[in-house]
Every structure is written in structure tokens, then in C-alpha cells.
């Protein structure tokens, strides 16, 4: 039942999408939480955990500072998980290769999240103007209402991003699955390793700490030697 899977995905996408900016910021929007949550609802929590490990670190170094909008890793992880689980059932291919293909399709499409988020924030300027008019007219209820409508525009941005990634994935992945299945078989476990390591490398390159490289190499070397020798 792909439709039910997609619906559960949409609910989680809405909930976690709002946590990114509009509500709470308790970090249920992080891929490490959002992906296992939707996967648990779809009955395969381990798939979500795998997605969480691969996506969590990728854009962790992109901070939502001021007006900066980082790529939407929340919707990438949710849509990637939903695609992997639902297409796994449809294509009878419950494998790491399909999971990786879903993620490799979802990751670039996550850029569209920035566009939707930008549009929501742009639309909220209108709400601000309406709130100003309402305040001038002495209508405080309308001021509060305009603020709450802002949450609605962030909801639409989250659902829009999720829908775009999922629909694109449903169209693209079945078409190219047979083509890339074989090449991915030779490299799937290395790709699974590479994604979090790319994320760590980006954090290492962009974190503002003077001894970052020394600390990282020392810890990596020590931990590795300990595991090797013990």
C-alpha cells in the first residue's frame, strides 16, 4: 500500500518540517530522528536508522544563521526512507542498493527545500504587513492570527518539498533501478561508509576551531589503533 506509506511520510514530514524553523526546535527534524520515526511507522525502523546515519552529518555544518537557509535534510531523510521502504515492497528489492539509490536521488532534490522555504519566508512578509495594518486598526486578534498563518506557510513548504522529492523519486527510481542495480552491488557498502565520512570531512573543513585537524587526526588515529590492537 504505497499510498498509506506516503501518507504516513507526509504526516512525519509536516511534524518534523515545522520543528526546523517554525515550532519548538527540539531537533526532531534532524535526519537521525526523523528517518527512524517514519521508518518505525512504516514497520522497518532499521532502514530509517541506516538513512539517519548516512544523512545526519552531511549538512550538519550548515547552520541556520540569520537569513541563511540550509538544504532541507529533514525532507531528504524522510522522503528517502519512504521511497526505500515503499519501492522496496513494490520492486521486491529489499536491499541496501535500493536504499542508496533512493538517497542519491533524494539528496540533490533536497535543494528544492531551500526554494520552498525561501518562498514561505517571502510570503510571511505579506503577513507582517497585514499584521501591521491590523495593529493600526486596533485588531489584536488579527495580529495574532497573522503570526499563526506563518506556521501554515512553513507547513506548506515542508509538504511541498516532501511531495516533490517523493513524486520525482517514484518516477525516476523504477526507471533507473535495473540500470544501476548491478554497478551499486559492487560499491554499496563503501558508499554507505562514504556518506557519513563526507559529512565529517565537511564539518572538519568548516568548523571554526583552530586545532580541528590535529584533534581529529589524533582521535581518529588513537581510536583506530585501539580497535586494531585490542
Amino acid at each position: 500500500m504505497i499510498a498509506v506509506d506516503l501518507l504516513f511520510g507526509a504526516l512525519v514530514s509536516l511534524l518534523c518540517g515545522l520543528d526546523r524553523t517554525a515550532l519548538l526546535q527540539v531537533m526532531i527534524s534532524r535526519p537521525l530522528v526523523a528517518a527512524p520515526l517514519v521508518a518505525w511507522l512504516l514497520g522497518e525502523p532499521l532502514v530509517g536508522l541506516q538513512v539517519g546515519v548516512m544523512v545526519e552529518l552531511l549538512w550538519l555544518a550548515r547552520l541556520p544563521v540569520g537569513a541563511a537557509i540550509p538544504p532541507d535534510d529533514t525532507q531528504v531523510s524522510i522522503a528517502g526512507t519512504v521511497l526505500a521502504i515503499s519501492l522496496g515492497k513494490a520492486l521486491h528489492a529489499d536491499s541496501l542498493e535500493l536504499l542508496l539509490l533512493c538517497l542519491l536521488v533524494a539528496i540533490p532534490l533536497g535543494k528544492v527545500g531551500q526554494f520552498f522555504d525561501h518562498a514561505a519566508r517571502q510570503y510571511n512578509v505579506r503577513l507582517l504587513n497585514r499584521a501591521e495594518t491590523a495593529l493600526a486598526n486596533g485588531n489584536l486578534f488579527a495580529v495574532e492570527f497573522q503570526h499563526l498563518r506563518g506556521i501554515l506557510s512553513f507547513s506548506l513548504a515542508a509538504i511541498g518539498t516532501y511531495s516533490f522529492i517523493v513524486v520525482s523519486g517514484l518516477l525516476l527510481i523504477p526507471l533507473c533501478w535495473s540500470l544501476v542495480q548491478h554497478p551499486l552491488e559492487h560499491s554499496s557498502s563503501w558508499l554507505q561508509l562514504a556518506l557519513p565520512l563526507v559529512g565529517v570531512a565537511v564539518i572538519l573543513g568548516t568548523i571554526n576551531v583552530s586545532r580541528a585537524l590535529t584533534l581529529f587526526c589524533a582521535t581518529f588515529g588513537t581510536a583506530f589503533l585501539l580497535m586494531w590492537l585490542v
Partner: protein
Amino acid sequence: MSLSRVTRIHVWFRMLLLQGSWNFERLQGLGFLYALLPALKKIYRREELLKVGKEHLSYFNTHPYLAPAVAAAVLKLEEQRAAKEELPVAISDFKEMVAAPYAAIGDALFWGGLRPLAAGIALFFAAKGILWAPVVFLLLYNAVPIWFRVAGFVRGYRLGVQSVEFLQRHRLPDWAIHTKEAAIVVLGGFSAFLVFQQLQQQALPSWLGLFTLLPMIMLGLIARKGVSTLMLTLLTAIIIVLAGLFWADLTSWVAL
């Protein structure tokens, strides 16, 4: 007059929706007014309320976890203004004065330090297939922000303008550096763990793992030059898939 506890709790809960109407013109301005309104309605009469409301609808942007501290101090100042007491600083000046430094401190401490640290620790659990990993992350991460949201609000209301000293006393910029360093240490250990696990699964010699540092440092340097994560991810994926195909062909030729 002092605001009742119920009103203050109401404002605190509304601060959780501070960024609900975030926009490019005044950022959190509308959200800040929305949060303060239940208290302002108690402090001011209608005409004054509209005038004060207009003031608070101005540009405002700070870190969402430290915003309750600003809001509570502003409420204290509003009470003093309503009682015609002399204010230590104009309310709009106070907001301007603290918003940017609080934002910088919060971004560095919470987004830049605490988040990668909590994620790094929780990822160990996730990589081992432990389903509680997301809960570990949420508990590790949220303890500090929730404390700041609550304690900042309580101290902000109690101390007013002097609540700035409360945050200064905690030397948050130093803590931001410490948490970032700790995050790097944890991520170093996590990377080593992933590489070691992979080599074991592939039955390859463990010492090969030490060579992983080289491409990681290279990728880090490229990222520092401004190349996007997306580009790095896709390039790495293409190289690995092509290398996998080449290796498969090579081993089949050797077998022949």
C-alpha cells in the same frame, strides 16, 4: 504591577512559536510581539497597548533558545515603564543591544557545538543498530537548551536588564569552543569506528583504514574553499561506483 505566574507561563509557551512567522523583512519581529501580547495586555490599557505593540513589531532576531531571556527582561522593563519608573535603558535599545550577541553566542554554542556533539555520540548507537539512538540524541541535545529556555526566562524576569550578567557569568563563548572541540573528538572516534567496522566486514587488513584520513582531510580542505556538500557527496559517490566497477572487472580478469 507584577505579572501573574500564569501570564508568564503563557508568554514562555508562546516563545516556542517565536519563529512561526519568520520573514525576510523583520525576521522574528511579529513572533516576538505575538509572544509578549498576553503580558502586554495585562500591563497596558488599549491606547498604550497599540503604541507599545507597534514598537515590538520592529526588526528582531536572536537565537530561539536565548530569546526567552530577552523577552522576560523586556517584560520587566515594560512593567517599569508602565509604572512610570525611570528605565536603565530604552526598551528598543536593550533589544538591539542583546539580540545580536545572543544570536552569535547561541549559534556557536547550540548549532555549531552541541548539535554535532550530541549527534556524534548518538551516531555510535545508531551505527550499532540500537533503535534508541534517536532518543539518546534528543535527550543529550535538549537538556541544555531547555535549561536555558527556562532559566533564562526566570532570571530575565527577576533581574531585568541585569540578566545579561547571568549569561555573561556562564562564559558561553568559551563553552562553545569546548563543545566544538569535544564534537571533533567524538566525530574522530566515530569515523575510526565506521572505517574499522567496514574493513572487518570486507576481510581487509585493518591498517588500510589509516589511509582514510587522507581523502577526508582533502575533502575538508575542498569544503573550506566553498565547494558545496552536495557536490562533494555526488563526486564521491560517482568515484566509488566507478571504482567498484573497475575493481569487479579487474578481479574477473584476474580470475580468467
